[in-house]
């Protein structure tokens, strides 16, 4: 055996001989490629062990856990407040929605009410986060298609304005740690609201620019249409949520279904996909940005005055009654839920995150079978994951 062959034999990924999910078409040898964990298109440390028949994928094994940080167990040994900054680090692009979901769960546990103004602020911040997430996820998707980063840069430019707003309000650009049990940490000044109005007024222009650059592009259409089809039945059965599910034509948006917070006051539409492919996921995200802008405009118009935090609300040293609570929101990536059990102590007895990224990723193999390797990269990009949330 040559040295090269020896090294190859040694480096066979674990589980490489799992039965094939699909029959190869000829009698040719299969090529085992480990894409990741340091492959340029795997969004961080994710690995796909792919078996290729030519360039066709006939088996795909997602391998994750490289970024595991013991989030859930850590939270069980920490006060309720102490976990809040760690939720920022789950899906680090949308830290504010993570805060929100966790705050909702704890509020459900303690029965704490939230002031009106805080609810409005949460909606504003949540929708800004959604816009940022969808824009950059589209940017990353096109980047994976090889567009030299132009759409990504445009998305990041829009994101920059929003991040400036976040910094001015919460003190940090990404790790905001802003929401508290029973409201928000600090109040927004009138100047901040004015700045936000300005930024929101500039957003439609950005979306138009994005649309002109991308939606009609023949190369993009040829690459994205008809690949990575996710049937609605499978999507529902696998628990896929968020834009992925809506792109599969299932009308399920927790903002509509659950009406958490004050979302039932906002009339907005839910775009649905009809072809269930990567292009639909891309377009659904783009259309959702437009809907979010509408929500933002309304929220900024209606935001009442008042406090953002109940003065009697305790943020630390409280002991909820024994019981359980599940708080869920429509995070940009899907249903983000926090499940808490209290045994009456200062720490949660059980703490569990329902991460949309991880659950949306479970159908990666089903979407990729029979597709080209190049398409697998796009399908993976269209799932829109953040490894911080997948591995926790």
């Amino acid at each position, binding site marked *: 055996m*040559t040295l090269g062959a020896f090294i190859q034999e040694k480096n066979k990924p674990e589980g490489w001989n799992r039965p094939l999910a699909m029959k190869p*078409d000829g009698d040719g*040898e299969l090529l085992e490629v480990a894409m990741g964990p340091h492959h340029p298109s795997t969004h961080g440390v994710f690995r796909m062990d792919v078996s290729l028949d030519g360039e066709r994928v006939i088996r795909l094994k997602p391998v994750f856990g490289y970024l595991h940080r013991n989030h859930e167990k850590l939270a069980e040994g920490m006060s309720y407040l102490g976990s809040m900054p760690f939720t920022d680090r789950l899906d680090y692009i949308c830290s504010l929605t993570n805060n929100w979901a966790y705050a909702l769960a704890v509020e459900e546990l303690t029965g704490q009410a939230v002031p009106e103004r805080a609810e409005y602020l949460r909606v504003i911040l949540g929708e800004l986060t959604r816009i940022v997430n969808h824009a950059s996820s589209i940017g990353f998707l096109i980047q994976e298609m090889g567009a030299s980063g132009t759409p990504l840069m445009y998305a990041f430019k829009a994101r920059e304005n929003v991040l400036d707003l976040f910094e001015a309000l919460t003190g940090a650009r990404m790790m905001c740690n802003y929401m508290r049990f029973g409201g928000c940490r600090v109040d927004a000044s009138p100047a901040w609201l004015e700045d936000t109005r300005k930024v929101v007024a500039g957003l439609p222009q950005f979306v138009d620019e994005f649309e002109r650059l991308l939606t009609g592009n023949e190369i993009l259409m040829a690459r994205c249409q008809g690949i990575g089809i996710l049937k609605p039945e499978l999507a529902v059965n696998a628990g896929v949520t968020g834009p992925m599910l809506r792109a599969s034509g299932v009308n399920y948006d927790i903002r509509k279904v659950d009406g958490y917070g004050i979302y039932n006051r906002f009339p907005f539409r839910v775009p649905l996909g009809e072809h269930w492919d990567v292009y639909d996921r891309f377009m659904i995200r783009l259309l959702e940005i437009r809907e979010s802008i509408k929500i933002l405009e309304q929220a900024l118009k209606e935001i009442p005055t008042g406090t953002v935090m109940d003065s009697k609300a305790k943020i630390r040293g409280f002991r909820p009654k024994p019981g359980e609570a599940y708080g869920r929101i429509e995070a940009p990536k899907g249903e983000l839920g926090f499940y808490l059990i209290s045994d009456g102590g200062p720490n949660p007895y059980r703490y569990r995150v329902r991460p949309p990224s991880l659950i949306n990723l479970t159908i990666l193999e089903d979407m990729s079978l029979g597709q080209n390797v190049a398409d697998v990269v796009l399908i993976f990009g269209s799932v829109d994951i953040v490894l911080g949330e997948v591995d926790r």
Partner: protein
Amino acid sequence: MSIAFYLIAALTLAGGLAAVLLKNTVHCALALTVAFAGQALLFLDLDAQFAGFAQILVYIGAVAILVVFAILLTKGSETPKGSVYSRHSFAGLVIAAAVFAMLGWAVIHSVAAVPRGPAATPSVTVLDIGNALMSRYVLPLEIVALLLTAALIGAVIIAMHEKERAK
């Protein structure tokens, strides 16, 4: 006969020999490419520009790539462990010698091949070749074209059948 000729001839021979003697098939193919390049240079040395460039275009640009692809697709790129020489190498040598002798005889006895007296380089331009191909040699040209088209269609049909079988 200049120094250039001997250098090129040595290069060509070395390439040819390496193609036969090397163990790794991809190395053999690359050595063969060197031989092709040498041949092209010989043409150029004789001022036969069209032939020389066509040699490079066809042999290096197409045939060598084809050979290399064939090797890779049939998984012959690994270096064999044992000897690569055939047991019937003697018979091969005899055949090679016979072919060489015949070709050599033909060349020596040809009237046109060996220039007598000071070599008057025939200045054949591309235009002349084109005119010749389109007038005097038009029939062979068309026959060759037909043959190639037939081969092309045949290849397509074979590929299509394979695809259908796979389905």
